[in-house]
């Protein structure tokens, strides 16, 4: 594998004083034309030209747009998928898609405001633009999409204004769109190239060990190498070109217990370069462990209802925090009338032990010897990425913010994210749980055993792996905040560990959080794709193992479909 650059040579974009001056003018609501040195990417040339022309042409309309942005995302991806030692497919795709954010009204009240009492379901609309660098052809598509967006925005603004008048005053008095400084950045365009035949062999090799088993019903692996290049311009003067590679390997296998319970295992790897993916020996070892785990799970006893202390491994804790906490601190959830708004009134209050902090940091690219999938330089609204301390010393400080403010938090903190074709909302990036040394314990198991004895319980629980919505890599997984523990052990007072299956974590997040008492030093990273209302976005979650003095578990509902009726049509074996 090598990176190659094409298109424009690297040249950093510096905002001129002139530009900043215009930016200030825009804050007063004025439109302006971009007079900066034209960037060399033909895509940006097309986008800027059409942006300027649209502004000029629509200025004289009765309701002109007050804001307009274009984002073109080019994805070049090379993918290989296989199952049980054989190839399912292999391909090489390149496409470019356009997203338009056109707003009418003003920063205070615009067409994007929630129309209360109406289904506000996320809309996916994709506009393919040419992959050839032909500004005329690209502009033709931008023009048509801009016109459609303008008409939709006008219709929507009328609905919004009526809704504001007929409904009770909104609880949250915040405005619809935050004012942000226009950013200017350009990095060289990267491409990915891999030896696809070699990866076809690897995928065969990684899935072949599963093929020996007659009771593993699904076993597949997929590899993808993708370069994502984003060009972003807006009417406030932002001009951004970013280009990042991502390499992913994902393995999934599934078996069933004799009572029909599904017992899946997953493994996922991520890196910014091909060499950051593990070598064959490491992957094959993980595959062996998946097989071993599934064999053990099939015969493991089903968990009973349990309330008591537990350990969450670093990986389990990361997924737990992402699903149970991370989704609830996404800014718009404090505003939408249909959301639970769990944490809305908690700003400035302790929600975790004072030794615990939770950061979302898209600027950290690597942690615990692992590349972090939720890294980026600018979000999908042209806002510069930054580290956000959501919980500091146990106290809830702020929320993850897009350019949609919530009461008390008027600015974005660079977390307006989306999948191409969706509207951006506040989403997670790299979640990092940090623990002060005073709460770090060398051996959580000793702590757990002491707690079991103290509470007079027969055993405690160790959650070694939890599956959440983002442990899937597909972009099509529905909005899933639920967690499903996959590998859970009973820990007896004598230190013995016993694998159990069928555990379902229940209880409210705030209660569970208040019971987190200690952590160890071993930070683990989970990389995945998170699915929510703005589509699938790459994220990571990193945490040390944590000790919780009380957790609630019940038996999970199992699949009603039993194991296959006939035996496998071939001999199994080692």
């Amino acid at each position, binding site marked *: 594998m090598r990176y190659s650059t094409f298109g424009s040579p690297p040249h950093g974009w510096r905002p001129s004083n002139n530009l900043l001056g215009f930016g200030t003018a825009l804050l007063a609501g004025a439109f302006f034309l971009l007079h900066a040195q034209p960037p060399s990417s033909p895509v940006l040339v097309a986008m800027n030209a059409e942006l300027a022309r649209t502004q000029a042409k629509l200025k004289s309309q009765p309701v002109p747009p007050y804001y307009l942005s274009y984002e073109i995302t080019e994805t070049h991806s090379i993918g290989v998928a296989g*199952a049980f030692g*054989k190839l399912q497919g292999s391909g090489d795709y*390149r496409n470019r898609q356009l997203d338009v954010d056109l707003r009418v009204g003003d920063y205070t009240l615009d067409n994007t405001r929630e129309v209360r009492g109406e289904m506000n379901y996320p809309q996916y609309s994709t506009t393919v633009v040419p992959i050839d660098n032909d500004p005329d052809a690209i502009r*033709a598509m931008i023009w*048509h999409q801009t*016109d459609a967006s303008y008409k939709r925005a006008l219709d929507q603004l009328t609905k919004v204004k009526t809704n504001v008048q007929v409904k009770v005053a909104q609880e949250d008095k915040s405005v619809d769109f935050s004012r942000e400084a226009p950013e200017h950045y350009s990095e060289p365009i990267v491409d990915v190239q891999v030896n*696809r035949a070699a990866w076809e062999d690897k995928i065969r090799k990684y899935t072949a060990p599963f093929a020996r088993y007659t009771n593993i019903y699904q076993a597949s692996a997929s590899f993808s190498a993708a370069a994502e290049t984003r060009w972003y311009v807006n009417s406030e003067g932002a001009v951004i070109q970013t280009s990042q590679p991502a390499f992913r390997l994902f393995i999934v296998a599934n078996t*069933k217990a004799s009572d029909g319970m599904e017992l899946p295992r997953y493994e996922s790897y991520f890196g910014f370069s091909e060499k950051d993916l593990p070598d064959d020996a490491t992957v094959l070892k993980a595959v062996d462990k998946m097989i071993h785990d599934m064999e053990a799970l099939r015969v493991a006893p089903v968990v009973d209802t349990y309330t008591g202390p537990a350990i969450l491994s670093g990986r389990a804790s990361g997924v737990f925090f992402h699903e149970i906490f991370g989704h609830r601190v996404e800014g718009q959830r404090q505003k939408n009338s249909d959301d639970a708004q769990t944490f809305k009134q908690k700003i400035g209050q302790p929600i975790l032990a004072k030794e615990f902090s939770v950061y979302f940091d898209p600027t950290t690219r690597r942690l615990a010897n692992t590349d972090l999938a939720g890294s980026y330089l600018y979000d999908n609204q042209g806002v510069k990425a930054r580290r956000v301390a959501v919980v500091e010393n146990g106290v809830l400080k702020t929320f993850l913010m897009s350019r949609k403010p919530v009461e008390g938090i008027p600015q974005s903190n660079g977390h307006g994210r989306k999948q191409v074709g969706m509207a951006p909302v506040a989403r997670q990036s790299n979640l990092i749980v940090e623990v002060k040394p005073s709460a770090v314990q060398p051996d959580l198991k000793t702590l757990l055993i002491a707690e079991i004895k103290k509470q007079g319980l027969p055993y405690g629980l160790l959650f070694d792996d939890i599956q959440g919505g983002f442990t899937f890599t597909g972009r099509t997984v529905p909005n899933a905040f639920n967690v499903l523990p996959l590998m859970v052990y009973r820990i007896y007072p004598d230190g013995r560990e016993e694998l159990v299956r069928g555990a379902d974590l229940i209880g409210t997040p705030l209660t569970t959080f208040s019971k987190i008492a200690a952590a160890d030093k071993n930070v683990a990273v989970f990389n995945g794709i998170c699915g929510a209302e703005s589509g699938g976005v790459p994220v990571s979650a990193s945490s040390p193992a944590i000790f919780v003095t009380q957790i609630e578990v019940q038996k999970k509902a199992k699949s009603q479909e039993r194991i296959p009726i006939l035996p496998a049509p071939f001999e199994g074996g080692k």
Partner: protein
Amino acid sequence: MRIARLSLLLTAAACMASLHAQDDIVMKAMRDEMARSMKQLTIENLEKPYFIAYRVVDSENAGAGASFGALNRSNSSRSRRLHVEVRVGDYKLDNSHFFFFNMNQGTTTQIYNGTMMLTVEDDYKELRRQLWLGTDSVYKKAVEDISKKRATLQNRTRTDESDDFSKEEPVTTSHELPAAKIDLPKWESEARALSALFRKMPAIHTSAVSFNASNSYSRYLTSEGTSYARREPSIAFNASAATQAADGTMLDDFLWFHGRSVAELPSQDELASRIQELGKNLTDLRDAPPLASYSGPVLAEGDAAPQMFRLMFLHDLIGAKQTINGMQGMNINNTNQAENPFLDRVGARVLPEFLSVVDNPLIAEYQGRHVAAQSKMDEDGMLSREVRLIDRGILKTLLMSRDPVRGFDHTTGSRHAGQAAPSNVIVTSSAGLSAADLRAKFIDLIKQRNRPFGVVVRRLRTANNVVLAYKVFPDGHEELVRGLQFVGMNPAAFKDIVAASKEPNFLTVQYRPAQNGPGMMMSFESEDNATPVSLVVPSLLFEDATMRMLRVASPNPPVAGHPFFDK
């Protein structure tokens, strides 16, 4: 990259070519797992399958698309899918034609609607594994469905007491046309060049062209002993364009050409001239006046004759079985559950006596021009045959798959795209007029009726979207009008056709069978539920047809002009 992709495709093509012995490794795995399942597959006290069918479809797809002179996409893929059908009960009453969806089904087997992805590499053991798991899952659903279906039927009277599945003699066939040659680099440059033609058409707002090719290789096997292997090449060219009239009326149209090889597609020059014509028509339509309403003689010629036959008549020539909805409380609207009026009209006149209709899947060409649907067998593995549907105006039979409907117990070998469907539909006239005579008759009719003008229709998208219609005045001159729709056109209107041309009009369309029941809702839109159908239909003169202006809210024309032309 391009070279690598190309060589992979060539390798794939070579592999595909070498696979096709009657009992290759895939067919052997299908046969062996089917034999085992028929013999042993049962859950205690529940019925064994009485029928199993496996279909394994290998497909190789490639396509290139462009707009305004620039490439939008160019890609290729390969896949292998397995479709499993398991029937329990008996031919009289089985689990089929019943819609019930269990939300709580396990995810262990990655099978949806009886379809699962297979690995593309031949391996007997892995094929057996997937066939085993697929059959198991579909069988479990079948036994659940039949018990629910029996319960549902206890509380319901049925209008259709026909069997659920027809008994037919087993057939073994194969039909392997040469694979279509995939040439992405060539299509990329042709797509660029053809899409660039729109750079000279300032009136057109959006446009796109694409080439899409597929080579599919199907293996089919039933527990009754029917089997076939079939290779179907397909290459399609598509061009579309859209604009708006000054009052906002949306105007759009497309071209679609289909062939089994590149040679069967129109030449590059021909495509270019058809695109020019498409652009010119839309450009002219922008300025054409609307026509508020019209009732009187209508002449359908060009594409319009086959399109009207397809849109307003053809569906009643198909015997489609109704689905029983087992989801109580689930109201599914888009079901086409009304009984076909033609079920009771066999022997009755449904067209004028000078018109006859056949469906003939056996031919590759008609009067020297290629037609789309050539196959020795249908998707049930039944032998294809020429079906005389209407003979001198009298309805003889309907196109049938193995799903009987009231009064039609057997197949006509007409299952395509998953249901009974047409292939090559040929309408002939025993009293065909020359173009000049037909036009003279049309003008006579206008005069007889004391109409200031008649309407000739040359192209339509749907009954509600007539693209090209012209006023024809008694002196013979024509004026383009826009925005018309047909009112109340149904098969009965075709009975009163007064004349037809001698020369037929050829049109090949991508045919999707009507959704016939709630179950269809769940299926994916793919090439599996579409099939190319050729229609050969003479120009048709309707004595009376009613048309009026289509009134729908249209967006205003674009605020800014097209960036390429508005300089």
